[in-house]
């Protein structure tokens, strides 16, 4: 337990220090929102209609750019060897790495979302459903992403490959997440169903990603 806490604390510290990537992910998220706003132009009703899907897509892309770092840096400096050698259960360690990634990327994105939402003229009623859907869905993004990062840890410059691996796996989370945000804003009865399915997707990722990550890390040792 002490080791798991230490891994999470260390990854968070590294993520927010120079070159750590956590602030960059938030900045990238903001840039996506601004670019969309500029591309759509001055049509306020159109932009408020697409605000939630744009934010969801932005969160998904901003998560992707930081996935490569989850295991690569540790492998390059040899600390992955130490982490693997000292792990009683590698899947628990893999889960800790995913938790650290969510705390350093997913949570800051959620915190930045209200600001971006103002820029995109999101309807007042849509804030809570959007934030709730992000809160339930982004842990799934980190979990699935950490699995892809473990899979590609031995390959140089794998960040594009990781994006290609995770994109199809992210589709259910994107559909139910954006769906829940839209349904919640419109007072649609599908809101609850979408949130439940989104939660199911994240729970499924929580069950499978740490086991798969551990297996991927082990096979990449050889």
């Amino acid at each position: 337990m002490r080791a798991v806490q230490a891994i999470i604390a260390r990854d968070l510290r590294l993520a927010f220090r120079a070159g750590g990537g956590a602030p960059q992910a938030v900045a990238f998220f903001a840039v996506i929102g601004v670019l969309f706003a500029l591309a759509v132009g001055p049509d306020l009703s159109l932009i408020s209609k697409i605000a939630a899907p744009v934010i969801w897509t932005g969160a998904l892309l901003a998560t992707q750019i930081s996935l490569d770092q989850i295991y690569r840096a540790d492998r390059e400096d040899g600390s992955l060897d130490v982490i693997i050698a000292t792990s009683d259960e590698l899947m628990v360690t893999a889960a800790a790495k995913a938790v650290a990634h969510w705390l350093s990327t997913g949570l800051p994105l959620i915190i930045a979302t209200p600001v971006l939402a103002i820029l995109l003229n999101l309807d007042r009623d849509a804030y809570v459903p959007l934030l709730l859907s992000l809160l339930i869905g982004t842990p799934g993004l980190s979990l699935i992403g950490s699995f892809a990062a473990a899979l590609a840890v031995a390959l140089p410059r794998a960040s594009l490959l990781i994006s290609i691996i995770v994109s199809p796996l992210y589709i259910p989370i994107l559909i139910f997440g954006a769906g829940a945000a839209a349904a919640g804003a419109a007072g649609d009865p599908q809101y609850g169903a979408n949130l439940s399915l989104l939660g199911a997707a994240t729970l499924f990722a929580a069950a499978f990603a740490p086991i798969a990550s551990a297996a991927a890390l082990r096979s990449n040792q050889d």
Partner: protein
Amino acid sequence: MERADSDTAARRWSARFCARGVGVSRGGVRIVNDISLDLDPGDVVILTGPNGSGKTTLLRALAGLLRPDEGAISVNGAENGLKSVIYCGPQNAAKTALTVDENLRFWAALYGAPGGRVAEARAAFNLDPYADRFAGALSTGLFRRLGLSRLIIAQKPVWLVDEPTASLDAASSALFLSHVAAHRRQGGATIIATHDALDIASARRLRLSEEAAA
């Protein structure tokens, strides 16, 4: 390196490390062939051989970080005794964006070491003046000393050390050798892969040949 007080030091372990007919491949190429090693408590084996002869590959396999194609590795008779092994590779496993103490504390947490071990390990490699310095701001030799201080933090019976003295000055090399001597007195076993002529009393030498890799 043996000192007069060596007999008074308490024996903490009786580490028997045993490898039988170990063969290892990397990327489909056989690198290490049929290596057998027996270490009794206090034994030191120095692994030599030209570049590409498989020293690192063998050490990683002995540490349980690579799966050998064949052969068996055991510590005190237990095949899964690899938790009692520490491997110190050519990279130092330290984060440049963390300070010396932050790195040491992280390792202490991973190895389940008491917090006081951090100061002990720092002092063991004369890193006290650098406790709050970022590891990225250390020189190559100091960074290596930080990497080696993991041996003191972990307190494992079997040390597998890869090129420990490659970037160390003479005083630091002697410091490392004194820790190896202390480890022997405590009944630990040590395998060192090196190109340097290390002066270790009654160490056995195992020379890996190039042909295995060719």
